[in-house]
């Protein structure tokens, strides 16, 4: 047996999980899909004293079509979200991002909320949260709050979630009407964590000028990051390959990765720029097709 021992509690609902967290506090971890946590426990990088299992709560998967976006219950598996018709229609970039997460066997258990609170800076769903202005519904035994994605990610694997709090649901906002999206990532093998990823959304006004731009990179810093300087360089401009090439140079403002065993920091910076150009080009052609 590879994991260290722990005491096991099975929550029957997310409310019940909050009660159990209040009782066991800092030494307890929530177990959802377990696709990151159990791997870390097998390595004994994680040795929680108490595990609160929310993988068998009543109705774990809920996806709701709301006026300003799509709300996904945190315990919904990535596979269910990936194939959900509402997600595919209203948030096609999210559906595409979900397909990039590991392999289908992992997505059958891994949850949408679990990946977000795990906050691996190279993973797709934290980046999608920033791209789609997500709002996180967070609950403890005594309190409820809503937090914006931009306030949630602190640094590597660290979020604003307190030890007695549980992520309940995520509202991913639908991008503007007639917008287009692009998503590109580079990984060593299919299904691996991205070395670098870039996602973009663009909308055009009646005159064909860029009226909305959103660019988010992942795998390039301690959290996913919005490239606001790239966005500013696009707004009000006529989109072209030349404009995208010029704007994408500004990704260097947010790339803050050190060289690691996989690649150098210089490589990451270059790839971030190239992938951003490609993501923008895809977003433009989809926006043109939509309008």
């Amino acid at each position: 047996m590879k994991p260290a021992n722990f005491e096991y509690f099975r929550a029957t609902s997310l409310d019940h999980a909050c009660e159990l967290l209040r009782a066991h506090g800092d030494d307890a971890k929530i177990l959802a899909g377990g696709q990151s946590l159990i791997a870390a426990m097998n390595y004994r990088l994680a040795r929680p004293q108490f595990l609160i299992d929310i993988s068998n709560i009543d109705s774990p998967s809920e996806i709701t079509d709301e006026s300003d976006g799509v709300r996904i219950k945190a315990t919904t598996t990535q596979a269910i979200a990936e194939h959900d018709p509402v997600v595919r229609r209203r948030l096609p970039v999210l559906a595409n991002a979900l397909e990039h997460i590991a392999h289908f066997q992992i997505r059958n258990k891994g949850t949408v909320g679990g990946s977000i609170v795990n906050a691996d800076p190279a993973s797709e769903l934290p980046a999608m949260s920033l791209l789609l202005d997500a709002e996180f519904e967070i609950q403890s035994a005594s309190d409820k709050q809503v937090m914006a994605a931009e306030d949630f990610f602190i640094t590597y694997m660290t979020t604003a979630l307190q030890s007695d709090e549980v992520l309940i649901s995520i509202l991913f906002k639908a991008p503007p009407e007639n917008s287009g999206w692009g998503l590109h990532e580079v990984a060593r093998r299919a299904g691996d964590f991205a070395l670098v990823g870039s996602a973009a959304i663009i909308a055009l006004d009646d005159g064909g000028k860029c009226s909305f731009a959103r660019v988010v990179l992942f795998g390039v810093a301690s959290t996913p990051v919005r490239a606001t300087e790239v966005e500013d360089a696009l707004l009000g401009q006529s989109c072209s390959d030349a404009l995208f090439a010029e704007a994408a140079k500004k990704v260097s403002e947010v790339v803050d990765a050190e060289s690691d065993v996989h690649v150098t920091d210089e490589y990451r910076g270059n790839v971030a720029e190239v992938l951003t150009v490609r993501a923008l080009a895809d977003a433009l052609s989809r926006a043109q097709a939509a309008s």
Partner: protein
Amino acid sequence: MVDKKKISLNVNGVTYDREIEPRTLLSDFIRHHLDLTGTHVGCEHGICGSCTILMDGLPVRSCLTFALQAEGKAIETVESLDTNGELSPLQNAFWENQGLQCGFCTPGILMSMKAFLKHNPKPNRDEIREALSGNLCRCTGYHDIVDSVVAAAEAAISSGTAKA
């Protein structure tokens, strides 16, 4: 010392009652407590796919699942595929096309492909390769595995059943 927990698991249609430490992985439970050693354990962190089993019909990593999480679910392992020693069409396709060499990865591949072919009964070779990307094989270079999956799909279609 953590107390043991009683567990009742349905594996291949049989209900097993045991007492285990909560940290017991489903992969270890299947192998050590049920002696169903067809499920292989490779990397034990979700990468290699050898330990893939079906949980309520969906392929998952048994090394990234605690046995206690599988209570109330229907578990299927590679031992469920044959009928009294007669290979299933999927197993037979691997036999006929030499879809294995050492065989270590084969149980995980069979369980992944059983679910994949149910979901996509007429896959092309690219779709098969994509579906195989979560199962590592270090012997074959995958070529004969892809052939085997193609043959299994064709056999299922020609026999008029989607059952793999």
